[in-house]
Every structure is written in structure tokens, then in C-alpha cells.
């Protein structure tokens, strides 16, 4: 039931090298300063630090840290997820991590060879790419002649697709992140999950065999899997009964350890599922999902707006209410002025007048805007439809100038078929497309873009989509010679998310990989979800 890897899936390059490199760099760094040192570690850095060097390696070193000297510690995870300083939001004007991304790409291409194919979309993607190219030119010669191990690289700005980041997640890993907050690959499970009186910090990665099988699954499949596993475990233990001494000895020495391990993991994840279920039932998750799907589809907008209004009136959660408003705004090209005014007023009344500042932040970020008069959805739609049928250049430019700064989600969604048309039930047990990560309702836009560009090996045929995304200047393809690359490496794709990546997108792309025989490697400035996105925008920390 879990998706096994295809037998012909390409092998990953040796990423453990990155971990060793990071550790050695850290030691080198610390050893640069002579004498006894104290190590002051900011709380947020503890987790990433643990991933590369634990106490037996560090021992006691002393480090003086002045306020303005920040040692950015880069952490390399199994799938190359980067954990930079906290607050890596796409705050307007903040380009400070562009260099870090460029450096990362430079490091990767030095270690694993040049990338034969580069694609990208987004303002930051373009800047990071250009900076990276500069770095390569300055220190040229290192990568020439090396065999490429990774065939494609795709750079993508978060703000190309905010919709996906705003949706509730329903794949297991995404749900765990939404519910418990996964930080640097580990999560704190409280007593309600561990079924004892202490909390536990758990590392969630492929070494947790139970987790690895369910992480990308739709939540509805997870129960079935866990209960099957529990039954198997029971059966294994039951075998003890018929054993003689010799068999028992063998059992204890060979199998018991593994079973205990499995038992422990199983009980943790079952506890997590129970906890998730409890929370979701309390939040009336079903109703919430209905509303989200309606917004994605563009159906019954008035009812969805009323739902949001009531959500605010009942003071359910400031972050959730905000998230829903943003989803409405992006999918509908902004709220109609009457709704904007009324929802804003109600939000301030329910959650506090200081959120006036939050609304200002969201407006600047383009997440929660008001439709300009005369710019209702039908007006935009008719303009776009004109575009589709009328190829005259002049008319196209006119239509597009008015599309500036608009999200155009509906038009894009139609062009890229993001809302699957279902005849009968959407089978979540055997998913047939990437929409399964949102229960069959919606294919993540970012993943669809990647899929299409990889298929075409270019942006050909996607010009309209690119223009609707308002990224027309920054979609690029750079195909250098592929002759050195093996066919195996050409099936390896490095995806770089600038501004954050969600677990749902990771799951969706893994699915795509299994379908097409690719393997995806993920590099991101941060793993994000709707709550983190909203919190970064919220002026008042809830």
C-alpha cells in the first residue's frame, strides 16, 4: 500500500558527504579561535546543530559571539533541506538569503558536477541563478570535465504559488507538521501522543520504518496501514507460544529487537494519529475542507465567504481565519470591496484592533487584497478569454497590462487543469495523480508547473501561463550540453524552493517521480506550511 520505489529509480548521489563537510566546517570554524571557549547556542539552532554534530564530537569549545556577528550554520539533511535562521519569510525586499542559495548551488555543482539543464521561474529564482552563474564564472574550471550526477535543476519562488502553501495538508507528514510542527526533521510529541507522562522528541526520517511507509500517504490510508501492522506485530509475538527453548532463544536473539523497535514506533504513530483526529474533529475539519475545496474550484463563493465570516465571529483561531481570507483573496483575484471592508472589520473586532498592521502586511505581500473597481472576476476572465482567441499582439498587451499584480488563479487553474474532473469517486487508496495530496480536489500549481516544464524540457507552450503568473521576465531554460550526463543522472531532478516548501509538495513530486521514473531531490530555504506563512505576516504574535 505504501508506494515502493520503482526498481529502476535512479540512485541518489552520496549526500552523506555534505553532512561530513558541514561538521568539519563547524569544527574548523570553532578551532580558528584560540583558547578556551564557551558555546552559546541560540535555541533555534539546537536542532540543526544536533543533526550534524552531537556532543561527543564537539566537546567543550569556547566561542565569543558579538551581537552583529551571526554565524549562519547551514545544515544538510538527507534530502538537502536547509535550515537557515528563523523567520525566512519572503519579506518584501529581503534578499539576504539569495547569496546563501547561490553558494549552496555552487557547492552542489562542485561536488556533484554541473547541471546540464536549468529551469526557473520567479524574481528570486532569477537572482539566485544569476548570482550562482557569477560565482561559477569567477571560480571557473572546477566543474568542467566533471560528470554530471544530477541532470536537472528547477528553481521556483514561493510566491509563484501561494495557494498550495495556504491549503490544509492531508498527507501524513504534512498533517504532523500542521498539527505538531516539525522542526529540522524532528517533532515534539507530548504526553497525549506518547501515552506516558513525558514528552518525546522524535526524529522523523526514513530510518523510522513505520514513518517512512506512511509519510506520503493520504491520511485516510494511514489507519488501515497502522492497524494491519499492529495485527502483524501481534501475530509475530504470538508465535512465541508454540516455541521450544531453542526456537525461543533464536527468537529473542534475532527477532525480538526488531519487533520491539517496531512496537515502539507503531505506538507513537498511532498516538499521533489519535491526537490529530481529536484536534481535527474539534475544529470541524470536514466543514473546513469543504470550504477550501469550494474556493479552489470557484464554486459557491458566497457560502464560503459566509463560512469565513462565521469563523471569524466565533473567534476560532486568528491564524486560521487569516489563512482562509487569503485563500479566498488569491483564488478570487482579491476580495470584493464590500467583503474586504466587512471581513477586515470583523477580524479586528474578533482578534484585536492591532491587526490593522497585519492587514497592511498582507496587502503589501499580495496575499490579501481588494479588487479595484471594474476589476471583478468576470471582467478579468473576459479579457483572458479574448486573449486566448485573439492573437493580435496589440490586444494581448492591453489585456495583460490590466492583469498586472493580479493572481489570476482561475485562469491558470483552467489552463493547467489543476482541478481534476472526477467521474465517480476519486480513489485515494490508489491515487492516479498528484491531486491525491489534497484529497483529489486540486493539483498543486507548483508541482504541475514542474511536471510540464520537465515534460517539454522547456517553457514552450506555457507562455500564457507564465504571463498569467506575472513572471514573464523570469522564466528561463538553460540547456548546456548533456553529452557527459548518464541517462541515470538525467532522471535526477533537484528542485529548489525559494521562500519555503510544503510537505504536500514533496509528497506530490515524489508521486510524480514514481510515475515518470524520476527521482526528486529537494532544496529549500525552509519547510513551511500555512500557519508559518501567516505567522510571518502577522504583526502581533498570537
Amino acid at each position, binding site marked *: 500500500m505504501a508506494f515502493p520505489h520503482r526498481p529502476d529509480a535512479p540512485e541518489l548521489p552520496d549526500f552523506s558527504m555534505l553532512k561530513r563537510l558541514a561538521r568539519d*566546517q563547524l569544527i574548523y570554524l570553532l578551532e580558528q579561535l584560540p583558547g578556551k571557549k564557551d558555546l552559546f547556542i541560540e535555541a533555534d539552532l539546537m536542532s540543526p546543530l544536533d543533526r550534524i554534530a552531537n556532543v561527543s564530537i564537539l566537546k567543550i569549545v569556547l566561542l565569543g559571539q558579538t551581537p552583529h556577528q551571526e554565524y549562519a550554520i547551514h545544515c544538510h539533511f538527507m534530502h538537502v533541506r536547509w535550515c537557515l535562521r528563523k523567520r525566512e519569510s519572503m519579506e518584501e525586499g529581503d534578499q539576504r538569503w539569495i547569496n546563501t542559495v547561490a553558494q549552496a548551488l555552487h557547492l552542489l555543482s562542485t561536488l556533484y558536477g554541473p547541471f546540464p539543464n536549468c529551469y526557473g521561474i520567479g524574481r528570486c529564482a532569477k537572482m539566485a541563478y544569476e548570482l550562482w552563474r557569477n560565482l561559477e564564472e569567477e571560480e571557473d574550471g572546477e566543474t568542467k570535465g566533471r560528470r554530471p550526477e544530477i541532470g536537472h535543476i528547477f528553481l521556483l519562488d514561493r510566491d509563484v504559488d501561494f495557494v498550495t502553501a495556504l491549503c490544509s495538508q492531508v498527507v501524513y507528514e504534512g498533517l504532523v507538521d500542521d498539527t505538531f510542527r516539525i522542526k529540522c526533521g524532528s517533532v515534539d510529541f507530548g504526553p497525549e501522543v506518547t501515552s506516558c507522562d513525558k514528552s518525546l522528541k522524535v526524529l522523523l526520517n526514513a530510518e523510522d520504518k513505520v514513518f517512512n511507509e506512511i509519510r506520503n500517504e493520504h491520511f485516510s490510508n494511514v489507519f488501515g496501514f497502522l492497524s494491519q501492522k499492529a495485527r502483524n506485530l501481534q501475530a509475530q509475538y504470538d508465535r512465541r507460544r508454540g516455541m521450544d527453548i531453542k526456537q525461543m532463544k533464536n527468537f529473542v536473539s534475532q527477532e525480538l529487537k526488531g519487533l520491539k523497535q517496531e512496537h515502539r514506533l507503531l505506538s507513537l504513530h498511532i498516538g499521533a494519529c489519535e491526537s490529530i483526529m481529536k484536534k481535527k474533529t474539534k475544529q470541524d475539519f*470536514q466543514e473546513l475542507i469543504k470550504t477550501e475545496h469550494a474556493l479552489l474550484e470557484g464554486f459557491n463563493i458566497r457560502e464560503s465567504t459566509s463560512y469565513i465570516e462565521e469563523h471569524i465571529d466565533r473567534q476560532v483561531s486568528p491564524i486560521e481565519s487569516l489563512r482562509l481570507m487569503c485563500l479566498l483573496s488569491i483564488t478570487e483575484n482579491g476580495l470584493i470591496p464590500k467583503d474586504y471592508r466587512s471581513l477586515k472589520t470583523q477580524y479586528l473586532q474578533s482578534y484585536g484592533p492591532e491587526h490593522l498592521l497585519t492587514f497592511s502586511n498582507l496587502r503589501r505581500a499580495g496575499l490579501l487584497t481588494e479588487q479595484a473597481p471594474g476589476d471583478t472576476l468576470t471582467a478579468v476572465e473576459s479579457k483572458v478569454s479574448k486573449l486566448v482567441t485573439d492573437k493580435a499582439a496589440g490586444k494581448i498587451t492591453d489585456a495583460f497590462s490590466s492583469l498586472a499584480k493580479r493572481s489570476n488563479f482561475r485562469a491558470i487553474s483552467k489552463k493547467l487543469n489543476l482541478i481534476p474532473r472526477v467521474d465517480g469517486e476519486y480513489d485515494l487508496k490508489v491515487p492516479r495523480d498528484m491531486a491525491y495530496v489534497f484529497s483529489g480536489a486540486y493539483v498543486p500549481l507548483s508541482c504541475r508547473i514542474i511536471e510540464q516544464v520537465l515534460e517539454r524540457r522547456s517553457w514552450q507552450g506555457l507562455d500564457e501561463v507564465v504571463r498569467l503568473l506575472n513572471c514573464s521576465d523570469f522564466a528561463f531554460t538553460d540547456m548546456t550540453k548533456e553529452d557527459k550526463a548518464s541517462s541515470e543522472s538525467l532522471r535526477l531532478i533537484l528542485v529548489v524552493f525559494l521562500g519555503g516548501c510544503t510537505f504536500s509538495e514533496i509528497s506530490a513530486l515524489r508521486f510524480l517521480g514514481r510515475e515518470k521514473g524520476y527521482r526528486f531531490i529537494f532544496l529549500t530555504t525552509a519547510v513551511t506550511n500555512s500557519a508559518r506563512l501567516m505567522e510571518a505576516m502577522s504583526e502581533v504574535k498570537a
Partner: protein
Amino acid sequence: MGLRMNRTKGDEEEYWNSSKFKAFTFDDEDDELSQLKESKRAVNSLRDFVDDDDDDDLERVSWSGEPVGSISWSIKETAGNSGSSHEGREQLKSRNSFSSYAQLPKPTSTYSLSSFFRGRTRPGSFQSLSDALSDTPAKSYAPELGRPKGEYRDYSNDWSPSDTVRRLRKGKVCSLERFRSLQDKLQLLEEAVSMHDGNVITAVLIFLKRTLSKEILFRELEVRQVALRHLIHFLKEIGDQKLLLDLFRFLDRTEELALSHYREHLNIQDPDKRKEFLKTCIGLPFSAEDSAHIQDHYTLLERQIIIEANDRHLESAGQTEIFRKHPRKASILNMPLVTTLFYSCFYHYTEAEGTFSSPVNLKKTFKIPDKQYVLTALAARAKLRAWNDVDALFTTKNWLGYTKKRAPIGFHRVVEILHKNNAPVQTCRDLKDRQQLLAYRSKVDKGSAEEEKIDALLSSSQIRWKN
């Protein structure tokens, strides 16, 4: 285009009942949930056979939940011991002998430390000492922190703006003082911007901020959007409020000016001082709507201060029943309006419109919509089990907005609130809503007096149920 807008009512039903939503049902009778519960029971029953104590392979976790061997664990462990262990001191001594860059410790790993930092990917290749010291174009991964003396060998006074910017990006030593003329400085800034690295841009801006007059700096940045954005971001981060406001004033970005000034109120803790500050915000160049919100914020805090003082007095006097029965758990200061309304409906429900603390007064002053008002009042009165008040709220004409035929979100919530507060069954009966009564019946305890009452009502021939 616009096909979806034409769904019929029948399609609607189909839509809501389709599989996407069934995928996420949380009914207690659901097979999957009971399956989960069963698995949990099974797993827990296995605890008897599983002896956790002697297992070495499981990740060891301390009482505080930290994995043993992790940094946080060790910090907690060693917190008690002030002096380092003998072993630790020995190690430090050996480290101290490598006090300069000249001697790198001999590596034991397959990849030598220095060769790794030189970018050689072939394992086991060692560098000569002179290679390690020279500052040739050979690539280095080592973060450029401690400044080995060798680094200064190539220090020059002659770098162009683009070279300077490149050095800044690499974190190398670089003095910007030689860029004296305005033209030089602007060129430096332009180079930084074209490099896209925010850290470099900010570093240059810090230099410009120090060496240029405010007016010139502002004037030049006005036409350089990227640099301007970085400066604003930087000023916000370091909290240089004065310069930020001056900048907004110069750029005539009046609304941002007003918002930045307003933001300061979050740093004022004392309620009276905050109230005075908010007063200064009224009349600032906000948009028309925001001006109204600011005014409301001030008025709200003003009210809350009065209510808080008054109620604290009443509570300590000990004569008022409501405060005796339900002592206040928190102050009302700086709470949102809806919370204040809830509080007012809880503690001051019957007060006349004239008082500051009466709900009706709040409703009028802040123009609270009917729907919001009824919902909040209902929650407060239900919590107090004041069923007469609940009834009265139901029968006002304001309630009609809630009774929708399909997917009655509003009424569903009402039942929820009532159920949470164990409402009597009369309310449902009064509304002649048999469906809701049935739904409610499923939630009460079997064989209870409530259930009997419900059954009596359901079988009554006198009530003309509407559904």
C-alpha cells in the same frame, strides 16, 4: 469560462456528498476510527511482553525528552558541574597548542580537513603547509572568520567598486572608507544591487547611512527601489524608528508613516500611557476606514480601563453575586472587542444602555452587527445557564437570519453551543425543529431523563414540527 457557475441544485447535493468529503469523515461509527482504536488496544496489550529496560538499540531519551548524546542533553547534564572534567581540560590543552592558523590538526578521516576545504573531491589527498597558507585563487569552503595574517598580504587600497562588492560577498576584509565622493558611493551601491546579495546591499547601506546626510541618502534611494526596500527592512529590524519615519515623510508615503507610528503602541505596556499614545494616532493620515479603526481602538481601550477599574472594585467589595460565583480569571484590558462583549454579556448583561459596561452600549458604540451580537450573547448566557435569556435571544427577529434550510451552519452551531452547555430540550421544541431534536437526542445519555423528555416531545401530537 464560467461553466461552474451554472450548477443546479441537484448538482449541489451531489457535490457536497461526493467522495472527496466522505474521505474525511470523523463519525464515531466509522470503521476506520474503531480500527485505529482496536490497533491501539492491540499494541498496548503487547506492552506486557515488551521489556524496554534492557534495550540498547532504541534511541535513548532522558527524562526531559532529549535524546541522549544530543547537545541539549549534554548541556543539561553538565549544567551541574561547574569545572570541566580532567579529560576535558586535557583536550583543551592540546587544542590550545594550535593557536594559530599555521597548524591545522592532523585529520583522521578519509577526507583531510584541508584538502576538503580546498575543494578536492578525491579522498586522501593532503595539502602541503604552504598551500594551506597561501591566498591564491584556489577555492576554499572554509568560512572566512578568523583573519589569518596571511590574508592581509593581498590587501590593497585599489579595488574598484565591483571588486569591493565581490569581496564583501565572500565575507573578506574590506574597508569602504576610500569611497569618498557621492558618485563613488552610488557606484558602489549600484554594484551591490546588481549582485543581488541582500547582505552586501545592507552592508553598503550601513556605510552610506553613516557617511551621507539624511537628505542626500533619501533623495538617492528614492529612485533606487531595491536599495530602498532593503533600507526600510533594515531600519525596521534594528528599530531605528526615528529615521524610518523621517524616510516615510520624505517619500510622502503617508499611510506607511501613520502605520509605523501606530505600531509603536505595541511597545507600551501601561494601559493609560498606551491610551494616551493611541490618542496621538487619531488624525494621522490613515485611509478613511483605518482612521475609523484607530478611533475604535482608542475608544475600546478607554472603555476597558473604566470597566476594569470598576469591576476590580466590585469584586473586592464582595457584594456582587456574579463576581462571587464566577471570579474573574483575567483582566479585560487590551482584549479584542468581541471578547469584551462576551465579558460584558457575562457580568453586566442586565445593565441599562447608559452604562459603559452594558452590552447594549457596546453594541451601539462600536456598531456591532446583530449576528455577531447574538452569537456572543448566546455563548455567554448559555455558559451561565441563563435559559430565559437564551429563549429571549431566539425569539427576537434577529434570529431569523440563522434558520437556513440547507447546511444550516448557523443553527448547527447553536445546537453545539447549547449542547456544550447542556441546554434543556425546550429550546429545540420551541423552534419546532424535529431534525435537530433528533440529532440532539443521539448525543444525550441513554436512558436519561433528557432522553425521556425528548421522546415525549417527539411523540406529542400537539407540536407541528416543521421538518
